[in-house]
């Protein structure tokens, strides 16, 4: 059974990238990883971001799980990006909370399984704080609400340092998920915190705010993985 990570508290530099193109956020993560690989004493870096509409493919593939044509997506301004993370196809869009921890798992002695478990855990803790109880499911990693998926995890590791991370559906338009077989699973439907609250007849007032979700995710991330946050000057673009 994965355990809460026990180790000394580490400095984590958190940076809010605002709304940023997927490929630009990927470049920032790769740069941070290269710098850390060259100098293992640099603090870990954790990016928070929302992406404009994009489908991304994992190492397990993805294009075969598009159920619409690429022209259909181009017409709607949705881009397609091949990535080096684990997993299959997924969708990112505004209203989804994305956390990218560039963490030296080796130095922190965090096993990959425990890291994935912890990322799932902090999505669960965050959702609970907003009134939605979510859970794991044997069908796939990530977090679920009943038969529907609400949060995903995917990582790439080089020289023991992770990039990519988690994506939690907060208030996004879920329609684009119907244009793919998410995670390569046909018939899988997705949900969001907003959708679940509405289904329960709860119209949150004020609506679920992305800033509040961000703060909650970061708080639980720090608690679970024993980080103390160091805020780098927030920047729309680095």
């Amino acid at each position, binding site marked *: 059974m994965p355990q809460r990570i026990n180790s000394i508290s580490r400095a984590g530099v958190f940076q809010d990238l605002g709304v940023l193109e997927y490929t630009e956020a990927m470049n920032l993560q790769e740069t941070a990883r290269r710098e850390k690989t060259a100098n293992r004493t640099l603090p870990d870096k954790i990016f928070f971001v929302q992406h404009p509409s994009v489908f991304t493919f994992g190492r397990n593939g993805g294009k075969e799980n598009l159920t619409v044509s690429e022209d259909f997506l181009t017409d709607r301004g949705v881009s397609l990006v091949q990535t080096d*993370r684990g997993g299959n196809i997924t969708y990112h869009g505004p209203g989804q909370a994305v956390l990218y921890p560039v963490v030296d798992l080796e130095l922190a002695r965090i096993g990959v399984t425990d890291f*994935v478990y912890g990322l799932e855990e902090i999505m669960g803790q965050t959702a609970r704080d907003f009134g939605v109880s979510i859970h794991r499911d044997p069908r796939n990693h990530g977090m679920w609400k009943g038969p529907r998926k609400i949060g995903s995890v995917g990582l790439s590791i080089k020289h023991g340092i992770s990039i990519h991370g988690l994506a939690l559906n907060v208030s996004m338009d879920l329609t684009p998920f119907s244009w793919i077989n998410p995670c390569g699973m046909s018939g899988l439907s997705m949900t969001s915190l907003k959708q679940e609250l509405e289904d329960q007849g709860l119209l949150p007032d004020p609506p679920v705010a992305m800033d509040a979700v961000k703060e909650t995710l970061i708080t639980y991330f720090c608690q679970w993985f024993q980080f103390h946050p160091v805020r780098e000057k927030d920047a729309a673009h680095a």
Partner: protein
Amino acid sequence: MKDINELNLPEDVKYTKDHEWAKAEGDTLTIGINDYAQDQLGEIVFVEMPAVGDSFSAEDEFGSVESVKAVSEMYMPISGEILAVNEDLEDAPEKVNEDCYQSGWIIKVKASDLSEMDALMDKAAYLEMLKG
């Protein structure tokens, strides 16, 4: 994760800082990931291997292993040409977890310069690195 003292680290192979192992017989090397790496990664579900005939320099990425939702790169211990890949892993990647030094080997390489082996670590030096 296993305690460092619990790791299975044979004496008759050499280790890299990225947790591969290499064993030389003449100028042919058998290469895999070690017990630390397989334990750190968890249940391995896919191994991406190079093509026979590909050439790499020492420390180049030569393939990757996917566990749960994470893809991790593997690095060449020394320079050389791929002579064989472990095709059994296509259907049974779990062999890397079960027996990383025998049936879970990953590639065989014809070394271009065996003296590069001197830069690799023996068990004692590798353990020292792990303990930091």
